[in-house]
């Protein structure tokens, strides 16, 4: 399986995205999915996506910019615990496992 490229972003590129990176990494490792994950600020996302297209962008906040068809998943459930299974299912479908 190809390495999945994942961008995780939030308002600072530090705070909530660090938590999401940790949770998503745990989830993908459990399922033996190889991946590259990187963090950024929400205002950085468009230029980062333009440079290199990821398989999915996971964000703790709304992304209003146009990402040219790259799927965006709202990762808030990784912070609150509410609806985490649904978000995981969404990731399964997008990444195809």
């Amino acid at each position, binding site marked *: 399986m190809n390495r999945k490229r994942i961008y995780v972003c*939030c*308002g*600072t*590129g*530090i*705070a*909530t995205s*660090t*938590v999401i990176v*940790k949770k998503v990494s745990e989830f993908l490792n459990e399922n033996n999915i190889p991946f590259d994950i990187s*963090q950024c*600020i*929400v*205002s*950085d996302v*468009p*230029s980062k996506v333009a440079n290199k297209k990821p398989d999915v962008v996971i*964000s*703790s*906040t*709304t*992304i*209003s*910019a146009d990402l040219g068809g790259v799927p965006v998943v709202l990762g*808030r459930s990784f*912070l*609150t*615990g*509410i609806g985490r299974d649904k978000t995981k299912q969404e990731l399964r479908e997008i990444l195809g496992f």
Partner: protein
Amino acid sequence: MSVVFDFFKYIIDLGVSVMMPIIITILGVVFGRKLTVSFKAGLTVGIGFIGINVMSGVMMNAITPVTKALVERYNFSLTATDIGWGIGSSIAWGTPVVPFVFLAIIATNIIMLMFNLTKTMDVDIWNYWQPLFISSALYLTTGSMILAVLSAVINMAIIFKLADWTQKDVSEVLGLEGISLPALQTTGWAVLGYPMNWLLDRIPGINKINWTTEKIQQKLGIFGEPMMMGLIIGGLLSAVAGMPVSDVLTTAVSIAASLVLIPRMVSLLMDGLIVISEAAQEFMEKRFEGREIHIGLDAALGIGHPFVLSLGLLMIPITLVLAFILPGNKTMPLADLTALPFYMIFAILPSKGNLFRGVITGIFIAAITLYISGIAAPIMTGLAADIGYQIPGGATEITSLAVGTQWYSWIVYYVLSLLA
């Protein structure tokens, strides 16, 4: 007893990168995490502190000569450089008040939840740094641990109430269901934002103006990227300071590098704190299962909303201009310009996205933030030196807009200082 005290003093004197791993390990174990897990988290935090220390040195060494040259050349009055919330938060998490204030904040939250005084369960442990900064400042200037803890209790009690009152708009306008934002820097401004909106609504003519936010993001988006921001401001300032081209170029790149790398180091602190934050979250959730509760999270969740982000970007040039024209201002805004959306959420939320009103209220917020950041500069400089960051001497001071923008906590600071 004195042996215990001597031991603590010995550890504290070894500096933040030794003290914090020990504190985090202990806190982790207290909240029922394994010793190995807690220790690794603690060590990660210690490593983060070393990284921040190195990077803040790089930034200070780049910016200090520029400020000095500007002072000599133009009698430049903006002598307190905004080196950003990253360093501000690391200072707050790096003083001896941390374990006591940390537990006091959790206790305050639990007690308020128990007595139905709030619906907000604040699991945003990372942003405890905001009340922690004031506590650390009080501990530095008064030496009183009691006042330090008391300030955090007051500051957080206020923010839990504000988070409750604003939760409806946070949910309906920002779309964050079941979430409230107990962040001093953000929700503290609701106290200004809502009355301002009410006032603007009653001024004939003005109340008809409505700007929308389309296109601003594409046009100003580049300023929201820390590396471009650092490059442009670093380059411009050193050019205006009359430095040779070689220095202008190296300064520009060094500032850009600092604005990218300091947050990377801060994310190590954050990473280590996740263990504590998860444990505290479980601890609280167990106690309030089945209650109607709003989960208090980082205001970062609201930043992506188009009208918040657009206003934040628009406020970057406005804040820079304000810094130069406001009489008596000594804050040179820099690193926290990219964090402006955080302070602007409640400038635009009350009007549900009217950019005109956002800018009007935003100007007040920016101006007050600049002045308070100036007042906070000697305290932040003192705290930074205290925990062992290399601060070059001379005419310059350090500050952070994030520290200045938590406005009411400074009133608490001054009132409690008088009690000492």
